[in-house]
């Protein structure tokens, strides 16, 4: 098997000490240290002596050609160091990396742009620095400019560009880099949603044509969408390396316990069943149209159905069920009961097994994680399962599908994200 990327026992040690804390070490410091070492042996004070730490420690992994690997981890976990080593910006202290194929790195959009030069000159400058040959850039020049959408300003100095224009041009160059291995750091952190979409779209195109991509991002939705494999780095070491991207990103976002709690189905445990005089709760779940419990994030234009299964023991005119949906910030997005409409529309609750279903509105929820809390009670009398204080809850995660507009691909601002239609009348 030829790997595209193979890291073997990779480690990077940094020096953290009095001198280095100031970043710029002066010649005087160096001479003083040298004199101390020559004169007094190792007798210098412990605190002044440099302290070493491993930013990356014994990291090994192998990536197959064509894999799209997401690298996740908190700030300072070592993922940027890893990328810097792979892109040859800094050397490892131990271990080695083998790269099989032409490698392009994009650690920051716009690297190497010079403000005094025109867009055209910068395309050539930037392209060469990123590793393209002149003839190659010339061949792709029109395509690059078209992709960037700054045709009219291509012979204007880049310093006159808006930052958005610079970004588009820079990304256009990088996107046409055409390497076999592409290493991309958090490029999604910059730019508007349209730019991000273009960026993601281009990377998807690249991965479809068999390019190997190493992608660092804090945007877990992008990781879920793009990556076939996720490597989670913490404290300089790989703590998880899995092809189940969703499972890893969920654990990353919500922790081990949080991830375990992220179920979209509730079934009665032996000791904690909701068992009352009027009914017993058999199950509470979010399912798809086909009846399968939802276990993955869904797009907001996908249908989710809330299903409450009950054994009704005794009827009561005030008996009602429902759920409310709470977002990550704790905001109750809406609440609904079986008695929302006029009386003739209320579902009949007769003795025996009853399954209540209710479709979650499509094209309505914003991106994110939602907690669906079961409501059960008798109007004006009692809560069996009270909103905000109920253990009977399931989760639903919405990712993508927010609208057909090119402008919105990630979370929209606002609590909800309905697609509202517009029309114009001209007199």
């Amino acid at each position: 098997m030829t790997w595209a990327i193979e890291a073997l026992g990779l480690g990077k040690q940094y020096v953290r000490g009095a001198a280095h804390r100031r970043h710029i070490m002066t010649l005087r410091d160096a001479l003083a240290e040298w004199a101390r070492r020559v004169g007094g042996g190792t007798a210098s004070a412990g605190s002044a002596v440099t302290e070493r730490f491993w930013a990356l420690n014994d990291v090994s992994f192998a990536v197959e050609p064509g894999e799209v690997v997401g690298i996740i981890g908190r700030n300072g976990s070592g993922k940027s160091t890893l990328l810097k080593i792979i892109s040859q910006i800094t050397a490892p202290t131990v271990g080695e990396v083998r790269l099989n194929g032409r490698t392009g790195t994009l650690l920051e959009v716009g690297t190497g742009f010079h403000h005094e030069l025109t867009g055209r000159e910068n395309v050539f400058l930037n392209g060469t620095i990123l590793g393209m040959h002149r003839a190659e850039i010339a061949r792709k020049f029109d395509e690059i400019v078209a992709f960037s959408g700054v045709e009219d300003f291509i012979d204007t100095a880049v310093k006159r560009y808006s930052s958005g224009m610079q970004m588009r041009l820079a990304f256009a160059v990088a996107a046409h880099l055409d390497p076999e291995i592409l290493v991309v750091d958090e490029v999604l952190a910059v730019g508007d949603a349209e730019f991000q979409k273009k960026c993601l779209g281009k990377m998807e195109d690249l991965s479809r044509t068999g390019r190997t991509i190493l992608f660092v991002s804090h945007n877990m939705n992008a990781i879920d969408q793009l990556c076939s494999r996720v490597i989670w780095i913490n404290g300089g070491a790989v703590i998880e390396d899995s092809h189940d991207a969703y499972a890893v990103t969920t654990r990353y976002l919500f922790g081990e316990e949080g991830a375990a709690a992220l179920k979209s189905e509730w079934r009665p445990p032996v000791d904690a069943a909701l068992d009352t005089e009027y009914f017993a709760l058999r199950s509470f779940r979010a399912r798809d149209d086909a009846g399968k419990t939802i276990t993955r994030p869904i797009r907001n234009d996908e249908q989710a159905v809330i299903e409450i299964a009950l054994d009704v023991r005794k009827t009561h005119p005030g008996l009602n069920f429902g759920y409310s949906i709470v977002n990550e910030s704790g905001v109750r997005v809406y609440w609904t009961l079986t008695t929302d409409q006029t009386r003739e529309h209320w579902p009949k609750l007769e003795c025996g097994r009853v399954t209540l279903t209710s479709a979650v509105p499509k094209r309505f929820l914003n991106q994110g994680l939602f907690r669906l809390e079961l409501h059960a009670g008798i109007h004006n009398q009692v809560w069996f399962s009270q909103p905000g204080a109920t253990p009977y809850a399931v989760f639903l995660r919405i990712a993508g599908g927010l609208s057909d507009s090119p402008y919105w691909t990630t979370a929209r601002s606002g609590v909800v994200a309905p697609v509202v239609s517009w029309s114009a009348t001209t007199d």
Partner: protein
Amino acid sequence: MSVVRIIRPIDDRRLIEELRDLWRGRGILAVLIKRDIAVRYRQAALGILWAVLQPIVTTAIFTIVFVIFIRLPSPGVPYPVFAFAGLVIWQYFSRAVTEGTSSLVTNSSLITKVYFPRIVVPLVAPCSAALDCLLGVAVLLVIALLFQAQLHWTAVFVPFVLLFVGLFGYAVALCLAPLHAIYRDIGILLPFTLQVAMYLSPIAYPASIVPESVRWLYRLSPVAVMVDAMRWALLGSEPPSAAGVVFTLLSTVLLFWGGLNLFRRVEGTLVDRI
């Protein structure tokens, strides 16, 4: 797949790989030189004229001070031609060294974000400054005609002298650039050192006015050798001493070898310390 790249700790890199890097980085070198030149003259109203104005003014001042005030004995050729020839070489050398030394720091935004052979970075200044230097030589020819100085057939060697000055400047920059990246003191020390070096070198005056007891130093000094070589080639004055040429060649090789070694050792972790 054709390209296999292995990334290892820096201690494993060999000197030959540095030289190979230099060759591999030629495309980027060309682009960086072009950028350097374009940026330098893009916004200046007098543009490329600045390149020649500076030595002309300096020569004028030298002429006033040394010929009119001090009444320096004639160096054998018209003084302005003599001084300008020295200045062209000196300015080329000093720009190559100054800009070459700071190159790693001024390009740090590039170096910390994308990989390309770093060894080409200190070479950009010696190459882009060569354009100014060539213009200076053109002006020198005009001045020589104006003052009716006798041009010598050896003028065909001038390009080689310039090439050598560039190489020597690169060798010095190669040693200083990694040091400057780590210890910024170099940046403060260098302009001052260069200024002292200029006054100590036979640029505004001929080495013949120097006391006999220290003249051997003038014969060995690489800067003096290069300036003498330029005057010899163009104006047919006394050639640099054989000992001086040998010493200069040796020190260039030594500096180049030392610079390559230093670069090789620092290169891998430069980004962490810059």
